[in-house]
C-alpha cells in the first residue's frame, strides 16, 4: 500500500470563535494544515488549544466560523461523524476504557470499520470470526509497533501513565485516520518517554503519511518534531510558521514570557 503524496491542504480553519457562557475561549482563529505535516499548537495554559481540538472533532460546537477537512465544510459535526471522516484523537487526561485490557482498548478503535452483523456475532458465524481474526491481527501489529505486547492483557487502568498515553495513541492509530489530533501526548513523561513518543509520532507521520496536529508544552520537543507551529494566546493566533520563524517572533516571546510595556 502506498502512502498518498503529501499535497495541498488537509485542514483549513476559518474564523472559528468559541465561547462558554459569554467567556471567549477562541476568537476569530484561522490557520491551515498541509497534508502530511506535523503541526504543533503551542501557547500558555488556557490559550484555547484543547478547545480548538474539541471543535475540530465535534466535541465542542463553535459560535462562528467554518472548518474545512478534506473536502467537507462544517461548523458543527458530531464526534461520531468526525471519526467516520477519518479524524483520530487522543485526550489530555487519558480517555481510555480503564477496566478493559490493552488489546481490547486498541481493538475498540476498529469498531467503525467492522461489518459483521448482530446475528453473525451472536451466533459466532464465520463472517464474524473472520473479521475478529483480521482485527486481532491488526491490533497485534499495533501492539508490536508501539512496543506494548508485554501489556496485552493488562487492564489499562493498572498501567503507568506513559504507557496509557501509548495505548491511547494505538487506539486512534488502528482506525487509520488521515488526521491525528494529539492533545499533549508527552505530558507528564520523563525525557526517555518523550523521546520514545516522539519517535512513534514521527514514524506514524512518515510511515503512514498521517497528518498530525499536536499540542505540546515542551518547546524542545516541538522544535525538533514539528514542521509547522501555530501559537495561541487568549484564544487568538499570535504566531504561525516554521519553528525557527516562530521562535524569532517577538509576540510569541511576549506571550510566553510577558513584556515590559
Amino acid at each position, binding site marked *: 500500500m502506498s502512502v498518498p503524496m503529501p499535497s495541498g491542504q488537509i485542514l483549513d480553519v476559518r474564523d472559528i470563535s468559541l465561547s462558554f457562557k459569554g467567556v471567549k475561549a477562541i476568537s476569530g482563529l484561522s490557520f491551515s494544515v498541509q497534508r502530511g505535516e506535523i503541526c504543533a499548537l503551542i501557547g500558555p495554559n488556557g490559550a484555547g488549544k484543547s478547545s480548538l481540538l474539541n471543535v475540530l472533532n465535534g466535541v465542542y460546537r463553535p459560535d462562528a466560523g467554518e472548518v474545512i477537512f478534506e473536502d467537507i465544510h462544517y461548523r458543527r459535526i458530531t464526534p461520531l461523524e468526525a471519526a467516520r471522516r477519518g479524524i*483520530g484523537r487522543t485526550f489530555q487526561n487519558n480517555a481510555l476504557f480503564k477496566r478493559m485490557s490493552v488489546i481490547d482498548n486498541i*481493538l475498540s478503535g476498529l469498531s467503525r470499520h467492522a461489518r459483521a452483523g448482530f446475528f453473525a456475532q451472536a451466533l459466532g458465524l464465520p463472517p464474524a470470526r473472520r473479521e475478529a481474526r483480521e482485527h486481532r491481527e491488526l491490533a497485534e501489529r499495533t501492539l508490536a509497533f508501539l512496543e506494548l505486547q508485554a501489556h496485552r492483557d493488562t487492564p489499562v487502568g493498572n498501567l503507568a501513565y506513559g504507557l496509557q498515553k501509548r495505548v491511547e495513541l494505538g487506539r486512534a492509530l488502528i482506525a487509520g485516520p488521515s488526521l491525528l489530533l494529539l492533545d499533549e501526548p508527552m505530558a507528564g513523561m520523563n525525557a526517555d518517554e518523550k523521546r520514545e513518543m516522539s519517535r512513534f509520532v514521527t514514524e506514524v507521520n512518515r510511515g503512514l503519511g498521517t497528518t498530525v496536529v499536536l499540542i505540546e508544552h515542551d518547546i524542545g520537543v516541538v522544535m525538533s518534531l514539528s514542521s509547522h507551529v501555530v501559537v495561541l494566546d487568549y484564544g487568538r493566533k499570535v504566531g504561525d510558521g516554521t519553528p525557527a520563524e516562530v521562535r524569532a517572533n517577538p509576540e510569541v516571546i511576549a506571550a510566553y514570557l510577558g513584556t515590559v510595556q
Partner: protein
Amino acid sequence: MSNLSHQLPAPFEHAPLALVPRAIPWGAAALLIVAFAGVPWLAGDYWLNAILIPFLVLSLAGLGLNLLTGYAGQTSVGSAGFMAVGAFATYAFLLRVPVLPLPVALLAGGAVAAAVGFVFGIPSNRIKGFYLMATTLAAQFFLEWVFTKFPWFYNHASSGTIAAPRLALFGHDISGPVGRYLLTLSVVTLLTWVARNLVGSRLGRNWMAIRDMDTAAAVIGIDVDHHKRLAFAVSSFYLGIAGALWAFAYLGTASASSFDINRSFQILFIIIIGGMGSVAGNFIGAAFISLLPIFLSQAGQALLGGNVDPGQIQNLQKIIFGALIITFLVKEPEGLVRLLAGLRERLAVWPLRF
C-alpha cells in the same frame, strides 16, 4: 485486512499471535453433561421444582440484566417488568396461535420483550445514571399496571392469572418436573452461549467502552445511542424469555404480581453479588440468592426448631442473609466471581504469598 486502507510500519513476523483454536472447555462440558444427563436421574421432584428450575431462570434473568448493567453500564430496576412482557406475550402466542411450537412462542415472546425494552431504552440517549434508573422504575410500574388493567392479556380470567396451555415439544408432553427442567436448562445453555459470543465480540467491547467512558467511545467512532438501545433490547429479550420460563416452567400460573418490583431488586442483587460484567457471575449470584435462604431455613429448623418461635427464626434468617450480603460486598465489591478468581490465583501459587 484488504478493506483497511493503511499499513503499520512495524514488521509483523514475530508477534506471538496465538490465534490457536480455543481449548475445549472441559470443565463446562463436564458440568453440562452432569446437568443434562445426571441431574434428571439423581434429583428428586422437590430439587427440580423448588431449587434447580428457579435457580436456572434467575440466572438467565441475571444474565439479561448483566448485559445491560454490567457490560453496557446502564442501570435498570425494571427487569421484572420486561420479564412480565415476555411471559404475557408468550402466553398470548401460545393461546391465540395454537400452531406455534413452544420454542417459537418463547422466541416470539422474547422478541416482543426486546421491542418493549428498545422503546424504554430510547431515553438513554439523553439521560444517564440515576435519572435513567428512574425511567426504568417507571417502566416497571407501567408494565405491571398494563398487565393488571387490561384483561385481554390474561384472557379475561377472573383470577387475573395466566397458565401455560400445555407444555409440549414435538408432540412430547414436557409438563413434568424433568421435562420443565430440561426445557429450562436447554434454553439457559443456548442463551448463555449466545451471551458469551456477544460479550466476546465487537458488540460486547463497544458496550464496555460506553460503560467505561461514553465520550471517548463516540470520539473513536462508536455509535453510543444505537449501542445503548441495542443493549436494552438484547437485555429485555433475555429477561422476556426468563419471564416466560418463570411463569410456565417454574410457577405454572402467574400474574402481574409475580413480576413486581421485588423481583427486579432480586435480579439486581444477583448481578451485584455475583459480579457485574461477568457471565459466570450470574449463576453464582443466583445460586447465592436462591439457595442461601433455603439453607438458612433448614439450618434454622435443625438448630432451633423446637425451642424458638418460627416467626423469630424467619426474622433471624433475614438478618443473617442481609449481613452476609454486606460482608461479601465489603470483602469484594466486584462480586463473588472475583472472590473466587482471587482464591484460585492464590491457590495456584500456594504456599507462597503474593
